[in-house]
């Protein structure tokens, strides 16, 4: 199955980006992780990928229903709250979606097993972090927090707004294609475009508007 993968679009030719944008690259660069490649036949991943892309909400709901009680149980036993469990699982599921849809992750275990492993791992790190921060004065703790936050976090909030301000139609077509990994056929059908061609033209028009609106943002923030 052919798809434009977001990670790929951002990662390939990264050197051009770095060379050109100077300061800007520091704010937007993503770690150039290599694509996961394997010689195994990704039977299971192909199935879950299709389920996720074609029936996203239903598939996510099934996974959530199964995983949440397990994560909650684990987190509660390890000094956490239901709220922690909720955050943890949702982060893990977003990661899972991106890996399966964009990076062709080959699952060697059930999705729930994978999610549990990610949650446990992240919760352990979170506990270590909280433990380290205990005993520090609030000022120092806050400073540390600022330092460990990913560089991405500040511009992230603003960036989302640029897509939202394009209107629902553009938001949906761009997100569905580039992030959710849907095929143009599916998008054209769902959003009542005459055909794939007109949906594709619309997609590039939306991308053009987004690019235009971002030029103001980047000159404002990075010059």
């Amino acid at each position, binding site marked *: 199955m052919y798809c434009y993968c977001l990670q790929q679009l951002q990662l390939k030719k990264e050197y051009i980006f770095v060379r050109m944008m100077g300061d800007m690259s520091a704010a937007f660069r993503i770690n150039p992780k290599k694509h996961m490649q394997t010689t195994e036949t990704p039977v299971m991943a192909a199935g879950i990928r299709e389920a996720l892309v074609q029936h996203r909400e239903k598939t996510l709901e099934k996974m959530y229903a199964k995983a949440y009680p397990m994560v909650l149980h684990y987190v509660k036993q390890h000094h956490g709250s239901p709220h922690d469990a909720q955050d943890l699982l949702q982060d893990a599921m977003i990661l899972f979606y991106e890996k399966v849809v964009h990076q062709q992750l080959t699952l060697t275990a059930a999705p729930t097993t994978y999610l549990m492993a990610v949650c446990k791992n992240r919760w352990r790190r979170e506990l270590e972090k909280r433990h380290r921060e205990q005993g520090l004065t609030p000022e120092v703790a806050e400073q540390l927090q600022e330092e460990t936050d990913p560089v991405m976090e500040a511009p992230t909030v603003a960036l989302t707004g640029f897509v939202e301000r394009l209107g629902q139609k553009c938001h949906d077509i761009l997100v569905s294609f580039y992030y959710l990994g849907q095929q143009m056929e599916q998008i054209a059908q769902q959003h009542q475009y005459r055909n794939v061609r007109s949906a594709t033209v619309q997609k590039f028009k939306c*991308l053009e508007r987004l690019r235009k609106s971002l030029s103001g943002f980047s000159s404002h923030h990075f010059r």
Partner: protein
Amino acid sequence: MRPELEEIKLLEALLGGQLQEEQEQELEIQLLWDQALQQKVALQQVAYQAIQEAGRKQLRQELQSIHRRLFS
């Protein structure tokens, strides 16, 4: 499609590594001197970044509503 949109499509193919080698080299050479094109490539990358953030936000909202439906 009008030429501006064709160009966006072309840059997308460049960024995704989907161009023929010859065409890719041609563009890279142009990028060495054409500052306007450099700017367009850079902005297009930020655009994909913005879409990724918007997508994550949408997914998060969907998961939140799943949580509310199932567990509260």
